[in-house]
């Protein structure tokens, strides 16, 4: 691992976490009732709430996954940025306001208000739980990825630390603290990203034509678990070696060796006319179990870097296969529809006093998030050309980029990224425990609970969900963070969006229709993902050709299917009842 733990980084990191916790405890003392726990009493100022949207939404995937994907493959990572942001338009213009008018805390409550049906409560609360847990997995994996090089601890330790801290925040304080924590964190993340972008532009672009920068690198894992790097044991002692940091421009336009400071426009223009060294990885497993991964430099024109279709995920769009193109369209559809369907985003819509304030906070949220996503392109490309990439791990691109500017930027960015994870995870745990307390216990099983019992059970379920998230975060260590987020968005969009949209816009929607739509959307999208070629390859270790589904992303099939089921079941129910 390239970055070694530094005392300064650890000190900054620990202070940050302690500050967050202290704030959470302080604000938590003001929160006593169930209403306060879940929605901060409807009294959060709209500007704060808007930036807190950004704190919720800019998750580990946004920050680590997108920057890493851009750093390794170019424009394709930016497609995620575009899709994640576009989803906000659906949330704001179609869903948010009518939902706010229904005046309920959770997705399940809002759906239930129109029908008072136990079936709806059950289906909606299960789907909220499933989506929350799926979205928690990439956050926890991201936490482990961050902790390992920052503090020199193993992956599982990072996951456990995040799980413990977040569960503590949620179980002691609840939503009021998380809104303010999210505000601080969302604001800081965007400010630091802007600062890094300025540093990237100031540094400009440099060419590295040395022979060493074109040497392939290997990582070998011997049957006993011993790790060799470029043929030597990994480490910093004598006779040991570490991977060489990578990420260089091999040729600048007109043979220049460096450009000096650039403006954003010149940065992208110069990069387009340059040639960049990207790295291709290939893993071979020998008969005795020795696993060797070879990383080979692949000089790529800047024009290719700035066009779609350069990554393994999206390369299908440059070919002729219709299915590969549909796979891309399907993912972009799921990103578009997924935002409005995420349970933790909807809850934050209830924390301001009226619809006008909610609209204003969404505008602030979109501005903050959009600004950040524009910066991701520069951060990613800066990391691609900044000479400090870890060739084995794209998720580390953003923190390592910061490290190339010195220990302070590295320490600060790592701390903010870590609190980003904390924030997103706490929002999800609140949503999940809300689903358990309000909908499963109160709604489906008709348990009568006192206010203090509700808060107590809410806290207990937070701890439970936190534990599950920790376990899954350890189990899924090897999986790509963006891939996991894609799962969560697809399931959320298929299960929740049709029910929400039709409830708000189609008067003949029935309770049975909503239950059927949530159930079918959730099960088909889950099933499709579990049977997809990507899952066969990355999870089960099977050949993707054995997969029974034609392409990996379910959205383009399961979202319309869930709509259709809702309409058909609603119409049939009407006829029988009439």
């Amino acid at each position, binding site marked *: 691992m390239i970055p070694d733990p530094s005392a300064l980084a650890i000190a900054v990191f620990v202070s940050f976490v302690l500050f967050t916790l202290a704030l959470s405890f302080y604000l938590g003392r003001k929160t006593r*009732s*169930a*209403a306060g726990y879940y*929605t901060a009493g*409807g009294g959060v100022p709209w500007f704060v709430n808007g930036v807190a949207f950004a704190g919720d939404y800019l998750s580990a995937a946004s920050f680590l996954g997108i920057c890493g994907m851009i750093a390794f493959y170019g*424009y394709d990572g930016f*497609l995620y*940025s*575009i899709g994640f*942001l*576009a989803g*906000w*338009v*659906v949330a*704001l*213009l*179609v869903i948010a*306001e*009518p939902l*706010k*008018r*229904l*005046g*309920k*805390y959770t997705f399940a*409550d809002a759906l239930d208000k129109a029908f008072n049906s136990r079936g709806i409560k059950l289906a909606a609360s299960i789907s909220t739980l499933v989506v929350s847990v799926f979205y928690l997995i990439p956050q926890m994996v991201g936490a482990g990825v961050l902790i390992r090089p920052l503090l020199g601890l193993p992956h599982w330790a990072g996951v456990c630390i995040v799980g413990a801290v977040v569960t503590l925040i949620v179980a002691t304080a609840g939503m009021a603290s998380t809104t303010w924590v999210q505000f601080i964190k969302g604001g800081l993340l965007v400010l630091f990203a802007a600062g890094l972008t300025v540093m990237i532009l100031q540094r400009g672009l440099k060419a590295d034509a040395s022979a060493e920068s074109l040497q392939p690198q290997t990582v070998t894992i011997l049957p006993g678990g011993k790790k060799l790097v470029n043929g030597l044991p990994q480490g910093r002692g004598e006779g040991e070696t570490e991977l060489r940091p990578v990420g260089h421009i091999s040729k600048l336009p007109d043979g220049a060796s460096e450009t000096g400071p650039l403006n954003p*426009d010149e940065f*992208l*223009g110069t990069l*387009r006319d340059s040639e960049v060294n990207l790295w291709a990885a290939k893993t071979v497993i020998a008969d005795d179990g020795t696993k060797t991964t070879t990383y080979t430099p692949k000089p790529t024109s800047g*024009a290719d870097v*700035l*066009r*779609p*279709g350069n990554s393994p995920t999206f390369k299908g*769009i*440059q070919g002729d296969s219709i299915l590969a*193109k*549909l796979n*891309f*369209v399907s993912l*972009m*559809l799921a990103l578009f529809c997924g935002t409005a369907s995420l349970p933790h985003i909807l809850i934050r819509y209830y924390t301001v*006093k*009226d*619809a*006008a304030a909610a*609209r*204003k906070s*969404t*505008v602030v949220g*979109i501005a903050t998030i*959009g600004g950040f*996503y*524009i910066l991701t*392109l520069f951060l990613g490309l800066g990391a691609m050309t900044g000479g400090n990439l870890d060739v084995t791990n794209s998720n580390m691109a953003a923190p390592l980029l910061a490290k190339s500017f010195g220990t302070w930027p590295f320490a600060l960015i790592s701390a903010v990224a870590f609190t980003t994870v904390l924030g997103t995870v706490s929002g999800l745990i609140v949503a999940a425990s809300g689903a358990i307390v309000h909908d499963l216990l*109160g709604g489906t099983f008709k348990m009568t*609970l006192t*206010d203090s019992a*509700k808060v107590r059970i809410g806290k207990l379920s937070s701890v439970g969900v936190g534990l599950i998230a920790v376990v899954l975060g350890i189990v899924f260590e090897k999986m790509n963070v963006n891939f996991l987020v894609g799962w969560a968005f697809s399931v959320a969009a298929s299960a929740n969006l049709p029910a929400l949209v039709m409830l708000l816009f189609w008067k003949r929607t029935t309770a049975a229709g909503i239950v059927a739509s949530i159930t079918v959307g959730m099960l088909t999208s889950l099933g499709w993902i579990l049977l997809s070629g990507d899952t066969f390859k990355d999870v089960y270790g099977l050949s993707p050709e054995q997969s029974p589904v034609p392409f990996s992303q379910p959205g383009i099939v399961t979202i319309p299917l869930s709509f259709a089921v809702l309409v058909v079941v609603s119409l049939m129910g009407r006829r029988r009842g009439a």
Partner: protein
Amino acid sequence: MPDLDHAPAPVEPRDPGTERRNARIGLILFAVYLAFYAGFVLVNAFAPSAMDTVLPGGLNAAVIAGFALILGAFVIALLYARLCRKPHGVSK
């Protein structure tokens, strides 16, 4: 003792006329954005080479379109917040 669990977040006075009007504005703006987004996705999927075109200013179509979609989301949100009215009977 009110059932805090189901006490709604503060509810505004209902005004069906304004609500309908706001919802219509939302859907129109949504349709506009949807058209741009769908166009972007379809061009990427079925004519990716068009995204290579270098536009005046020296950036390619892919980068310009990406920035435009992100800025566009903000502009649409701002327009929506401007055009929507508060329910009748609320001061300000």
